[in-house]
């Protein structure tokens, strides 16, 4: 009798111990990755790195200035494509929750969210590169935009649903049309939340490489033209990482530092915004 109880206690303690160990096991690689990125990346993160063009093979120095600008352009393009579509679709889902279309759209958004980014890249290649037989910034923006859409759709829907129904009822009671109620009462109330959703989506796509490999491709020079190939931080890090040159490896680490910084910034902004929203709605 006592023996079984002891054994059960021991099993329980072992299981609890395993759970603690699991947390440690997950945090070790996280710590390792952040440590190495900062250790290797920070020393290489010079002013030249942030502002200069890459040097030709064999020459030391140079930077990823054009890739940083390129990534910003690509992210902006993706946002321009995804934000309007995502928000309006999200409004539809929140307003006509039970409709048949809403069910289909919700499901499609979940499906799209799970499609591997490399497959989105092939699709963007087929519709935006092949017809013009040219890699372009626009094709890269299309690929990233498609990835953003489902995230924005679902966060918009969720956050609109958080707006107290009394606000909508009040607006409708005052004689506002449904559209009027949404655009002048509900949307403004949910706006901070929706911006948060956009930030979450930006954090997701800012580090994407695979869909850009054969859409935006790469470019060794400054370029802001949408119908031309454009450099991006992620593709540049990839190219440098698999190259045989030490100097390029150093720059790849520096690029990774910038990437992690950008992603962390977006995530932290989104997180604090979500916190504030939750407090607002609970109050």
């Amino acid at each position, binding site marked *: 009798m006592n023996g079984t109880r002891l054994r059960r206690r021991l099993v329980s303690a072992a299981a609890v111990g395993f759970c603690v160990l699991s*947390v440690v096991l997950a945090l070790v690689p996280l710590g390792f990755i952040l440590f190495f990125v900062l250790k290797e990346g920070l020393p290489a993160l010079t002013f030249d790195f942030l502002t200069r063009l890459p040097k030709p093979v064999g020459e030391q120095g140079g930077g990823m200035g054009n890739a940083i600008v390129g990534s910003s352009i690509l992210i902006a393009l993706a946002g321009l494509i995804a934000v309007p579509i995502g928000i309006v679709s999200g409004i539809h889902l929140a307003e006509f929750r039970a409709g048949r279309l809403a069910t289909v759209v919700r499901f499609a958004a979940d*499906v799209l969210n799970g*499609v*591997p980014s*490399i497959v989105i890249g*092939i699709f963007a290649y087929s519709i935006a590169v092949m017809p013009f037989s040219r890699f372009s910034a626009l094709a890269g923006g299309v690929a990233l935009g498609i990835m953003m859409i489902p995230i924005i759709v679902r966060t918009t829907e969720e956050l609109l649903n958080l707006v107290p129904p009394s606000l909508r009822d009040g607006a409708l009671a005052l004689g506002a049309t449904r559209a009027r109620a949404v655009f002048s009462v509900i949307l403004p109330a949910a706006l901070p939340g929706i911006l948060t959703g956009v930030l979450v989506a930006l954090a997701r796509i800012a*580090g994407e490489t695979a869909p850009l490999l054969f859409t935006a491709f790469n470019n060794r020079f400054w370029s802001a033209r949408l119908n031309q190939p454009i450099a991006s931080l992620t593709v540049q890090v*990839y190219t440098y990482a698999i190259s045989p040159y030490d100097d390029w490896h150093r720059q790849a680490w520096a690029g990774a530092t910038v990437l992690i910084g950008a992603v962390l910034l977006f995530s932290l902004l989104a997180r604090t915004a979500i916190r504030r929203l939750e407090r607002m709605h609970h109050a």
Partner: protein
Amino acid sequence: MITPVASGRRARERGGFRLGTGAVALLVPLLVAGIAIVLTWDSLLSVRQFGLRFWVNSTWDPVAGIFGAFPFIWGTLYSSLLALLLSTPIALGIAVFLSDLSPRPLRQPLVFLTELLAAIPSIVYGLWGIFVLVPAVRRIESLTPPWLRRLPLFEGPPLGVGLLAAGLILSVMVIPFTASVAREILKAVPANQREGAYALGATRWEAIRMALFYGRQGIMGAVMLGLGRALGETMAVTMVIGYAPRASLSLFAPQYTMAAVIANEFSEAADDLYLHALVEIGLVLFIITIVINTMSRLLIWRVGSERA
């Protein structure tokens, strides 16, 4: 105040609003359908030429125009299953710790840190993989005793790059996804399940096991969600898998995955057949991930709706 005329106008406006936003929302399912159609269309050459042999043939020779995708599908499944094997216990451990065991002040920071694992870009995992993980794996491989290395599972020279490195990096990347869904599921298990167990004199672990059992479908869903992520993961795997289109049982052998071959060869595909073969690999990856994700959603959703 409301005259019939006015309410008629309002009804029309309401219908217009519904139609207008609906038309935009329709783009989302159209996009999914569009991807399916375009990928099918652009892989027709390869589908016609090779048929089902494409999936069992192991020869991948772009120069001779012979394309068999077996090594890629093998590598994708092998690395993903290895990742699942390594990540599932850890992810569930984390989920249990965060839902049942963690001291309150630790919980939020730990949730944030595990989510951070999901936020790190794939390319950064890959960079770390090349310069830190692969050398470490190489050391482990060369320290493996010779009698073990004679087993098919550990055959081959200690290169570092290969299936083991890919599986390890994938498992780290998958953990946050599985853990966060599993945690939601554990939270959704009604309190009376655990309370009942405690009332019957259960230990802590026995009560937790009750909760895990109660939410088993959702837990399955969480694991499958992780699987979906692992199957489609591209950059990190591409950088450490070793580019060898040879299916092998060995964990130490360099291999290849579906996503990696697309990433690596797509922009070099010189002729249409080559391109169509790569698109066909993408099409199958698309179908597999849709099936896996849908099943995972259904499992998770069922637990959620039972609770309501």
